């Protein structure tokens, strides 16, 4: 079920809004409207829906309307037009009190500059959301402390935010939002002010938190790498409009228009694509078969190596045609001749992490699942093809196309 749903959501800053709305309907651009009326189009008829447990990234250059859009979601900014539905409730129809209730129970927000209250301790900051709900002090501080422990700040409870580094401050920001146990986390460029290493840590941590708590996260960023790294789906904004919504692969592989294409042009594909995207179905032979069967299968498929698996498809090793031939002549089993020392990778291993195992290895790389079962193989050619942007070598959405 969609947890957050926006329909035709617009925000225009200025006077005489209805006239500007008409101009939008006539298809005039943000720039034209600014020239004619002096009004700024913040968001232009954005529609999207975010599913429960999803990390939905809103990405765009500075000024493209990301912050405005995220503030329309909790109505910190009143929409000029359109509707926003949170967990089945239409926000526009709510009075102040009901809106506060939605903010308290469903939505938590994390800010670019952290927005911690400098006069309150870390603990009091984290407890803020619960405090304004009227929860008593012991209970709210207990929960705030749990939340701070989760982000690794359990030992800084009584410090003031100013005494902490940027990364730690944003952990407090995250803990403050999580302490309320909201359904949806709104994060406006939450990691943009942090330096790259800390930023990567925070991204990993966010993904972990999402895994364990199943929050729905709407994450704003201007950084494509960040979007590709953490987003389940990405909405790309330009001049207030959403120009494409899709999974990272869809955005990369099928840009909706020239703008998106330009945007993703410089992306380092090796950091987005995974082994799952480029692996091929493997040719296998059961361990209980003799070398003769192995030889016949190799001939049939036109390959010079074949993978040996047990009854449960668990990867044991591989044999080359020469080895199988030798075994056949000398009356040995496959087990006697097969090569068992072979590096494996997982389906979600990034291309960038394939180069090293590939360099030590003449045979194709094997891809195994968590139970050690062989699910695919990777040949050198597909890696190079994928990096060069050849879509033919890709499997759809990183899923596995059967296993041979």
């Amino acid at each position, binding site marked *: 079920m969609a947890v957050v749903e926006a329909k035709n959501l617009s925000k225009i800053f200025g006077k005489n809004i209805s006239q500007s709305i008409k101009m939008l309907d006539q298809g005039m651009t943000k720039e034209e409207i600014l020239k004619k009326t002096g009004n700024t189009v913040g968001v232009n008829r954005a529609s999207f829906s975010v599913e429960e447990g999803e990390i939905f990234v809103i990405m765009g250059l500075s000024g493209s309307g990301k912050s405005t859009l995220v503030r329309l979601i909790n109505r910190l900014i009143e929409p000029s037009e359109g509707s926003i539905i949170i967990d089945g409730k239409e926000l526009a129809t709510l009075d102040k009190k009901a809106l*506060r209730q939605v903010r308290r129970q469903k939505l938590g927000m994390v800010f670019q500059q952290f927005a911690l209250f400098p006069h309150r301790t870390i603990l009091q900051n984290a407890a803020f959301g619960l405090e*304004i709900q009227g929860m008593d002090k012991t209970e709210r501080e207990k929960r705030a402390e749990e939340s701070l422990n989760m982000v690794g700040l359990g030992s800084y409870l009584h410090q003031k935010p100013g005494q902490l580094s940027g990364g730690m401050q944003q952990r407090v920001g995250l803990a403050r939002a999580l302490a309320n146990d909201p359904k949806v986390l709104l994060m406006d460029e939450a990691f943009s002010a942090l330096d790259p290493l800390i930023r990567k840590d925070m991204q990993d941590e966010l993904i972990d938190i999402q895994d364990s708590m199943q929050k729905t996260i709407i994450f704003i960023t201007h950084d494509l790498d960040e979007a590709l790294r953490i987003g389940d789906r990405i909405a790309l904004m330009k001049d207030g409009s959403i120009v494409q919504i899709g999974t990272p692969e869809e955005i990369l592989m099928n840009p909706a228009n020239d703008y998106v294409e330009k945007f993703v042009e410089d992306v380092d594909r090796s950091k987005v694509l995974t082994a799952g995207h480029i692996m091929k179905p493997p040719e296998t032979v059961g361990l209980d078969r003799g070398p003769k069967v192995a030889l016949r299968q190799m001939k049939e498929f036109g390959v010079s190596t074949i993978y040996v698996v047990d009854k449960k498809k668990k990867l044991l090793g591989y044999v080359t045609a020469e080895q199988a031939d030798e075994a056949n002549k000398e009356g040995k089993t496959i087990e006697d001749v097969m090569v068992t020392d072979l590096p494996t990778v997982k389906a979600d291993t990034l291309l960038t992490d394939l180069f090293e195992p590939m360099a030590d290895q003449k045979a194709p790389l094997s891809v195994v699942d968590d139970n050690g079962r062989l699910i695919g193989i990777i040949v050198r050619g597909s890696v190079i093809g994928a990096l060069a942007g050849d879509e033919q070598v890709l499997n759809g959405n990183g899923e596995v196309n059967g296993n041979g």
Partner: protein
Amino acid sequence: MDKAEGALFPKLPLDQWIESFEDFLTTYLSTLFDVISNVIEFITGNFVSILEMIPALVLVVVVALLAWWLISWKLGLFALIGLGLINNLGYWPETLETVSLVIVSVLISMIIGIPIGIWMSQKATVQSIITPILDFMQTMPAFVYLIPAVVFFSLGMVPGVVATIIFSMPPTVRMANLGIRQVNAELVEAAESFGATTGQRLGKVQIPLAMPTIMAGINQTIMLSLSMVVIASMVGAPGLGVVVYRAVTQVNIGSGFEGGLSLVILAMLLDRFTQGFNKK
């Protein structure tokens, strides 16, 4: 139609309008003014009586110790010497009256001014209406306030307090407004995003963060009300102002200096006290 010499048009009867407005007020609102008058009279009267009951030596030492304890030993020493000097010069009763006038005026200014400032900070329209009124209150020569103050509250301490409030309240209002508006917009958004009510947002975030600015406004109000002391004495408000005013009319440079010096000592003490609080 009268026409002033050199005037282009017959004179607008602005003075008459103001006077009839004043007539209207005195006729219909006299009860209200009586109530206000009695309340201020009661508070200041009691304030002075209480201060007078305390032996001078005790008061000097207590103030000095407070200054030392709350602010610094230097201020403590200054209070001891300064107040001791005032006492020695023989202006102790007048000083107590002036302190009462100033403190009561400032308290009333805060009670009225801070809420107005907060209200202004919340609504652009309120701000655009009140700002010119504050400008008017501050630029109008302070003497002019004496006239309505006397008309509505006759002579004595009360019109002195009223004129002092009108003249000295604007900084408190302005700085409360400014302080709240200056709070980082992201912090305000943060409070609202968690579902804070207006009261919670103000009380838990904006007012605490605006406190230094609000205190600076109160400090200015105190200084302005001290500067009104001499003017207030013209309508019969007792205190050090009377000493100075009498010295001026009698061209008595000696007692004029003594009264003035006592005022300066008071001003410095109050200034350091309020500024010192700000730093904590």
